[in-house]
């Protein structure tokens, strides 16, 4: 049943996966197991996305299915679930830019690959990045931006992290729309990633995970 569930969710079979989740809950199975299976299914979705088999529609829809399953499971949970994560990462779209499609894909891919992601959303002022890095002690920061105004905002964000004395302890990656290696140099970031898979590879490389 567990294997079916993982495959049904990874294959985005809405009706079937929800019916099976209900059946498992009704049978008194440990709800944590359903969440574990959901996580396994999301890892498959992430892999299919990385392999070019899945695209944005599948990511969005799988996220929706996960949300529905989680909501079904929630009333059965006795305590909050804690999972072991690889490392913390703070991400956000820099000040003056309100685009988040790419940001949310990166969030999803980092999450399914085992990172503990703090997503600050869009139009994030530098102070908020500093605060989040201090609070989470995340060793990695991801800056997202779509338009050209983000060039300066990224530069200012990295400078502010430096001024706050945090720069030496963190790696900074940038990505999105008009970003590239030129902007990386300009903003004094550590790396530019062209897509969400690159973000995962960079993050894993920096923390020494495989």
């Amino acid at each position, binding site marked *: 049943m567990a294997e079916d569930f993982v495959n049904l969710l990874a294959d*985005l079979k*809405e009706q079937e996966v929800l019916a099976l989740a209900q059946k498992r809950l009704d049978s008194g199975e440990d709800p944590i197991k359903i969440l574990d299976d959901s996580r396994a299914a999301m890892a498959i979705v992430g892999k299919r996305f990385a392999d070019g*088999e*899945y*695209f*944005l*529609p599948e*990511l*969005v*829809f799988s996220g*929706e299915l996960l949300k529905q399953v989680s909501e079904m499971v929630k009333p059965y949970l006795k305590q909050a679930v804690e999972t072991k994560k690889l490392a913390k990462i703070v991400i956000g779209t820099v*000040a*003056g*830019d*309100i*685009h988040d*499609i790419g940001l949310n894909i990166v969030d999803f891919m980092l999450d399914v690959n085992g990172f503990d992601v703090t997503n600050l959303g869009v*139009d994030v002022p530098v102070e908020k990045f500093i605060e989040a890095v201090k609070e989470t002690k995340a060793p990695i920061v991801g800056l997202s931006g779509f*338009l*050209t*105004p983000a*060039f*300066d905002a990224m530069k200012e964000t990295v400078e502010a992290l430096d001024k706050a004395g945090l720069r030496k302890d963190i790696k900074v990656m940038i990505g999105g*729309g*008009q*970003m*590239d290696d*030129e*902007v990386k*140099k*300009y903003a004094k970031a550590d790396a530019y990633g062209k*897509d969400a898979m690159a973000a995962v590879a960079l993050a894993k490389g920096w923390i020494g995970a495989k």
Partner: protein
Amino acid sequence: MEENWAELSPDEKREERFKRWLSPPGITFSSPQAEKGYKERVTRFIKAFQLKEPDRVPCILPASNYAAYYAGMDLRTVMYDYDKLAEAWLKFLHDFKDDLDTYIPPALVPPGKALEAVDYKLYKWPGHGISGDTTSYQCAEAEYMKADEYDALIRDPSDFWLRTYLPRIFGVFQAFPQLPPWTSFEEIAIQSFVPFGLPEVQAGFKALLEAGTESLKWFAAVGAVAGEAAAAGIPGIMSGFAKAPFDTLGDTLRGTRGIMMDIFQRPDKVHEAMDKIALLAITSAINAANASAAPIVMMPLHKGADGFMSDKQYETFYWPTFKQVIMALVDEGILPLLFAEGSYNTRFEYIKELPKGATAWWFDQTDMARAKNELGDRICIMGNVPTSLMVTGTPQEVREHCRKLIEACGKGGGYILSGGAQIDKGPAENMRAMMAAAKEYGLYK
């Protein structure tokens, strides 16, 4: 239009429109040299579009809100002060006159007060939702159309716009859902006027009138600038905009998340809605082209880019109505200019379905050498000078990049040197270096 317009083939219609672009009615040139310059510039573009060799590679400088910052102002200032708007754009025009093949008047800088008058929510702009020093306005994507509203849109788009969609993006139309459909007016109006007496409904109409009055002031300023550029012999290149129906539905109605879900949960409705939207897009684009000298309609493309959807999804959901819009314009002799943001490397096979010389493709980060190689005998290609280089690079680097692009794409004509996207701020020397590269490396002998 010609009397026998309906009998002309699409190619003949395009030729007729090109002729009109070359000798536009209503322009008085400031001098015979200006007129000569105008014809030279327009010819340069037309030949590139026709996949023939012009005198040299044409160039479009990637300046969007650039003139504002070049003049020491900012976007917020010129959105609210139309004299300053004109002043900034004219300064750029005069200073860059010798470096311009075409000129984009400030028609893309919307009047801030008109937007405020209707409490516009679809976009954020400097000082209004985003910080005052931001150099661009941006779409605030949301689910402005709900998943269960497809039938209403499909049944009667105008009614859906007026009473459901617009009230969500114009704050002042908040009371408009209380209006009856306009088609329900009684034969002899008895009660039909009643809702229009409601103070909150009247407030919406008053605000709309105010936005109209404000926009006319703005329009006069923009028109004066455009007129001066044309009189000086520098042509405009775009007459209007259209979008792929999937983008219209996904960008500003259902939102990215919404439409991606709909692909799975209500695919038939998505198709029906796109069929309706395609017809609306076609009508409005043809009207725009008819009202303007340049027979070119720009289509900014979003959700069909590489990585957004699979080939199968593109073929099923994006391409059919997109192609329908393109071909309806082509059939009218209008040249659609497809601006493919991001990259479009996986979509070449679809582009090959389009007739030769009938469209131009403006590529942001697509592989240009491959595009030239595989598509160069079919479409004019443009773009690919990175915005990052224009903003952060040196003039030498810009020149060198442009030289390589011209080498890769210029052979035999059919290439227009232009940015991957546009910039708002950056060294003027880089703009000059770009045009210098077109003049130095882009000559056809």
